[in-house]
């Protein structure tokens, strides 16, 4: 019966994972060639959620295009907004008030925790444990609530604008962050008990989806994926923006290169983010939350590039300006796109269950890949 459909000449099965599939977390479409249970080839087919944000941004003003970027990597929308704001600010040459810088970094790190927590639950679900997902959402909910108070949104924040942040912090902000910190610290041990130290989980992760340091660099991997292969690439550390240069932050590196290393790196990054938040939360300087900018922004003719570290890796914004109200060309360098390109390399020769674990460990967000 299966003869006529989906077989290669060698008799391998060709299977579509996605675009509707429980473990692709969106509309990713992987065409995989299977020999029994062994994956021989993975071919990503993208574009199911391609909205051509780059083309749209060419007809939006410098204030407007930032909102589109919240819809790219929706799990770290604060950081995407941050990258765009930084890029526009390069051309505006305004001094960003320190309060705004601190707020941006705080929000960025809270977003990173929220994103990593969700990833933790989703990864556990990919390898078959459903319970951690709900526990992850319990913590994420707190973060969403406290962001909602300040930004008015829970997912697409649109809070950071050229010159600073859109509104000042909500009066409850500090108290709720403190509450979150104390709650999260007790929960992170629970995470280890439930998942990290589980023998089945370790077996599913160790030695799976290995990528060497050289390959990680060559594939343009960034973020936790590259750092788990020992590539030092944390933009916050290498090219500090806003006040990242002044806070104590350790770059988490691991040389395992496999799914387990990526898991450990992200778990430790949550701790690092927590420490950054602790350093800043009681020291938010007073002052303006936004620098004075003109009503209509125009960037001088030229090219601008800014890079920020999102929860998934290096996010780059490349603006070519002709001195008009709208950018001439915008290119978003999304971390997920490059990380995904390595999936074939990682998954070859592994089992189909491993492919799912690898997808989970890459922390793919499909709108970020398709843009």
């Amino acid at each position, binding site marked *: 019966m299966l003869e006529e459909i989906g077989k290669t000449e060698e008799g391998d*099965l060709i299977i579509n994972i996605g675009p509707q599939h429980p473990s692709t977390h969106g509309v990713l479409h992987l065409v995989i060639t299977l020999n029994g249970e062994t994956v021989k080839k993975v071919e990503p087919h993208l574009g199911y959620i391609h909205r051509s944000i780059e083309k749209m941004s060419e007809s939006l003003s410098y204030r407007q295009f930032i909102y589109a970027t919240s819809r790219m990597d929706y799990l770290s929308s604060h950081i995407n907004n941050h990258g765009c704001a930084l890029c526009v600010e390069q051309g505006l040459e305004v001094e960003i008030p320190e309060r705004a810088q601190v707020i941006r970094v705080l929000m960025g790190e809270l977003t990173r925790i929220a994103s990593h927590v969700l990833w933790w639950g989703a990864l556990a679900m990919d390898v078959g444990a459903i319970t951690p997902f709900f526990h992850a959402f319990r913590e994420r909910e707190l973060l969403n609530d406290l962001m909602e108070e300040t930004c008015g949104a829970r997912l697409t924040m649109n809070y950071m604008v050229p010159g600073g942040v859109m509104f000042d912090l909500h009066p409850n902000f500090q108290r709720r962050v403190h509450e979150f910190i104390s709650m999260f610290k007790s929960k992170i041990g629970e995470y280890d008990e439930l998942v990290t130290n589980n023998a089945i989980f370790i077996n599913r992760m160790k030695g799976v989806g290995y990528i060497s340091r050289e390959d990680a660099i060559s594939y343009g991997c960034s973020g936790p994926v590259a750092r788990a292969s020992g590539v030092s690439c944390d933009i916050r550390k290498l090219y500090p923006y806003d006040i990242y240069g002044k806070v104590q932050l350790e770059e988490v590196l691991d040389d395992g290169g496999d799914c387990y290393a990526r898991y450990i790196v992200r778990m430790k990054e949550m701790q690092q983010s927590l420490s950054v938040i602790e350093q800043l939360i009681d020291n938010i300087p007073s002052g303006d939350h936004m620098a004075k900018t003109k009503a209509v922004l125009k960037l001088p003719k030229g090219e601008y590039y800014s890079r920020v570290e999102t929860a998934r890796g290096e996010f780059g914004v490349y603006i070519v300006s002709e001195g008009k109200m709208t950018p001439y060309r915008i290119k978003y360098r999304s971390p997920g796109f490059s990380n995904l390109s390595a999936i074939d390399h990682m998954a070859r020769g592994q089992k189909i269950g491993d492919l799912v674990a690898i997808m989970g460990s890459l922390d793919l967000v499909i709108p970020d890949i398709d843009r």
Partner: protein
Amino acid sequence: MALFLEFVIAGLLCIGLFAILGLVLVLMERKVSAYMQIRLGPNRVGPKGALQTLADTLKLLSKEGLTPRGADRFLFNLAPFVAMIGTMLLLAPIPFAKGFQLWDINIGVLYISAVSSLAVISILLAGWASNNKYSLLGAMRSGAQIVSYELSAGLSIIAIVVLTGSLSISDIIASQADGWWIFKGHLPVWIAFVTFIIAVTAETNRAPFDLAEAESELTAGFHTEYSGMKFALFFLAEYINIFIVCAIGAILFFGGWMPFHIGNWEGFNRIMDYIPSSVWFFGKTFFLIFVIMWFRWTFPRLRIDQLLNLEWKYLLPISMVNVLLITLVAILGWHF
């Protein structure tokens, strides 16, 4: 005529039990998972959501049972019934209370081992006939898995058979009148019990061994293409299977309907006898079911090669050595 009437009554009881158990177990699973996942679970239909599964059944009944165009129609529609019939046959030798047993066959344990192997046929049928690559992969996984784990399950059953000296279920229960095997049998019985629980979890395709379904890998594995009542039959069969294997576990290791007795403490034993035997049986069975559900909502899934490694490299050698140990214990009379 009387025989015929008996047949009808027994059949109706079986089907009724089948349906009620299905409803109860599905609700229990949802409540247990909700408890572990800091949720409330079903709580709208009926008191505390008790009628939720009934509503779900009605929904499934009214849904269209699709047959994919490329499927082998006959086998595709046959598979869920094979699954259900195989499971129903297993209800026959199980004593639900003292003297309440449909068929006290003298090779009861052997019968159960034999008939429970039928489950794999329905899964293979479903996977093959669906003409879906996910289903096929799921079915093949399931085939490899059930055939492997049956060995360990069988060997751990043999451990108790060696101690009892009988294949008949009523004899096995009677032999535990002075204490359950789990207490009388020392370490070897504990090993047998642990292997048994692992093996039957795998045999019923439950997480962490749910590779045949493996939601995150194969969407729904062997029953990807099933919908409506045909899907419900698979679903039901899975839960009844859990009930049956847990009942067998309770019979072999915890004495079935036998109350908690300690050696010759007459007074204590008599007090225990006041608790009805059916309560003992269902209490033990549902405790084991809870344990198996607990596994499901805690552990990640194994990979197929790890699953087979676990069986062939660890469980099977251990249970083989364990059978020798048990034989030694039985011959030397070291058990209580």
